[in-house]
């Protein structure tokens, strides 16, 4: 049993914390969000310079070969500072490539990700799919030496800034069959691909992406398989564990901002933090933080070490359920305890509320994971 970070993890943590404190203030973030692209290439380059984009890339492809456990401090900082750059989407994309790509695909993509030259996104969710990962109606059929893709993807996070998409398609079977799903690497500039971009609830950029008669070569197929569902589950579980730790960072910020407010806001001549009812609610928020952090830690350790997918799914679902509950309670309570100030767009806390609301449902809401947890 050892909760201490390794020397390397300590260095990552220190560098991201330093970066955030100096270069990613809430004002900076506000400007980034308002910018044309909705993310900052400078910030992305800085993250690359700090080596953070290489952490999760295998060493053979210019990375550091780290696991989820090595990314916790980065995710926590992302949550705390509400970083909007496409870190998680790119980590997901590169994990797809690293786990199932050909040598050629890995060589062409992973070093570029590690050095910050390439951002990725996972184009998967579809209209009406809710959180069912097997719901894939976008079809690919063999045409000539390659494939032709047709279908629509919805709310692809960071889709507008991704140069390359990992796209799930149905190669065989019915719309929600477990079998028959494949993955393709598709550049966003291929003819037939069109995007409709939006800002999400938590001010990320997303896109609905439409594939109309899109021709891709045979080597665009990732993993050469029609049984990609287990890979998708693996990558989504991995990302779920990471986003749990992002929530931990956001909750830590929400708690510390609320505690500050309770200590400084005076009414009736005393700080409102002297009122016992508010004290007890603040205490419950702290307990939520500790419990969420424990489950996020467990989930990250599990996706790194667990080889049995059933056990992995069980723990990841448990973590997501607990973290979603904490997101909901802490976000709602932090706004309530801030009073009117919490409602204001000007205060960071309202944006943390929005991000926590999003995380609670990202990769499946509590009900979805309760169902999965009960079934395992």
């Amino acid at each position, binding site marked *: 049993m050892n909760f201490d970070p390794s020397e390397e993890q300590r260095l990552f943590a220190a560098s991201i914390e330093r970066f955030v404190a100096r270069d990613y203030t809430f004002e900076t973030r506000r400007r980034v969000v308002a910018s044309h692209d*909705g993310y900052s290439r400078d910030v992305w380059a800085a993250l690359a310079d700090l080596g953070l984009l290489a952490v999760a890339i295998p060493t053979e492809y210019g990375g550091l070969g780290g696991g989820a456990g090595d990314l916790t401090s980065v995710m926590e900082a992302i949550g705390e500072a509400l970083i909007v750059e496409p870190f998680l989407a790119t980590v997901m994309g590169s994990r797809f490539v690293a786990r199932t790509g050909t040598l050629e695909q890995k060589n062409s993509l992973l070093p570029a990700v590690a050095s910050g030259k390439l951002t990725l996104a996972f184009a998967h*969710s579809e*209209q*009406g*799919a*809710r*959180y*069912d990962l097997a719901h894939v109606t976008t079809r690919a059929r063999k045409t000539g030496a390659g494939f032709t893709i047709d279908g629509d993807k*919805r*709310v692809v996070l960071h889709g*507008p800034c991704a140069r390359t998409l990992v796209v799930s398609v149905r190669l065989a079977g019915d719309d*929600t069959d477990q079998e028959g799903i494949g993955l393709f690497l598709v550049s966003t500039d291929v003819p037939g691909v069109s995007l*409709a*971009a*939006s*800002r*999400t*609830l938590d*001010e990320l*950029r*997303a896109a*609905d992406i439409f594939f109309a008669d899109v021709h891709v070569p045979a080597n665009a197929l990732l993993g050469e398989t029609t049984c990609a569902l287990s890979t998708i589950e693996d990558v989504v579980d991995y990302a779920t564990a990471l986003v749990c730790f992002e929530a931990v960072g956001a909750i830590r910020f929400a708690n510390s901002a609320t505690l500050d407010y309770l200590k400084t806001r*005076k*009414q*009736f*001549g005393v700080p409102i933090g002297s009122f016992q*009812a*508010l004290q007890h609610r603040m205490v419950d928020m702290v307990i939520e933080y500790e419990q969420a952090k424990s489950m996020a830690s467990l989930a990250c350790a599990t996706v790194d070490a667990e080889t049995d997918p059933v056990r992995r799914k069980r723990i990841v679902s448990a973590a997501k359920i607990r973290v979603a509950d904490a997101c909901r309670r802490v976000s*709602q309570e932090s*706004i*309530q305890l801030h*009073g*009117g100030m*919490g*409602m*204001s*767009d*000007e205060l960071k806390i*309202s*944006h943390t*509320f*929005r991000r926590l*609301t*999003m995380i609670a*449902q990202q990769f499946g*809401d509590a*009900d979805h994971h*309760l*169902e999965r947890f009960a079934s395992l």
Partner: protein
Amino acid sequence: MDLNYSVEERAFRDEVSEWLRDHLPADLRQKVLEYRHLTRDDLQRWHSILAQKGWVAPSWPQQWGGTDWNVVQRYIFDEACGYAGAPPLVPFGLLMCAPVLFKFGTQAQKERFLRPIYCGDAFWCQGYSEPGAGSDLASLRTTAVRHGDRYVVNGQKIWTTAAHFADWIFCLVRTSPAAERKQDGISFLLIDMRTPGITVRPLILMDGEHEVNEVFFDDVEVPVENRVHDEGKGWTVAKYLLGHERMNTARIGTSQRELEHLKEFASMQRKNAKPLIDDPRFRDKLSHVEIELMALSITNLRFLDQLRGGRAPGAEVSMLKIKGTEIQQALTELMMEAAGPAAQPFAPVAGNDRFDRFMASLAPRYCNYRKTTIYAGSNEIQRNIIAKHALGL
């Protein structure tokens, strides 16, 4: 015990509902149902229709346009409007300034201000909260110094709903900074929003909407005749207004409409190839809200019955506010949850013409409704009121 409306009450409800069916403009109703932003013009249009019918100010004295309805009729009317999807009436003139004028205003003040309020020619806003005075309202620091027949007002108000389109503001200001009890140095002024020295700055809420404002007063001159009640009696006026609560704080009618909408919506969404409403996990959350609302509608009627029996409204109003807002928030949360990932988009980026604005309104609405447990006396303050006044703690 008879929990149903009487024959007369039912007839009245039917009359109101039928009139609403015929006179509530479809476009306004649609905007309300789709959670779209209502402009001043929208609000004014509906206000005028009601004013023409004579139903815009039921609680006013009949000579000024009131309807002489009893509390139950007023409740039925409010709930019917909410259920039908009518736009809200801006309450600051009709339900806040006017009762103060009836109670404390001079004849001249009544004649000058009431008619424009009734007709919807003048919209009002409320200058109460300040950056350092929220729940602790009596700590306010905006000053009004008398110079002859004018007050000169300096200071700042915050969270001022509708200030960006209001014509007038009623304000609590400090006229005697040296008063021993801080409550004693406060006066109640009516101020024309076009007076030089007033600056309105938008405060954007977390849903991105402009509802509330900061209002700055920089040497703003206000004629002494615009003071209501005596100098230093502002706190008496404020307390009167606080006690003059409406019984529709629970917003039963609106929530009933939202609940029906949620059920319909959840029937159309699918989970595991079945309607979401048949999923026991989602369904139980919906059932709990439905039952809580069912209970609150009876609770509200029970309290109304006591009022009709002559009792003054007490801490019950606080309970209706607490439960009513909790239900409203739960409904917005379930609606967002029912939409699932489709609720993630918030606003289109330029050029996106395939954007589903209704789905995208659900998360902002959830965000926006967090205000309901904060405004109009936070639910914590309401619990304090019940503890003190109803329980003697």
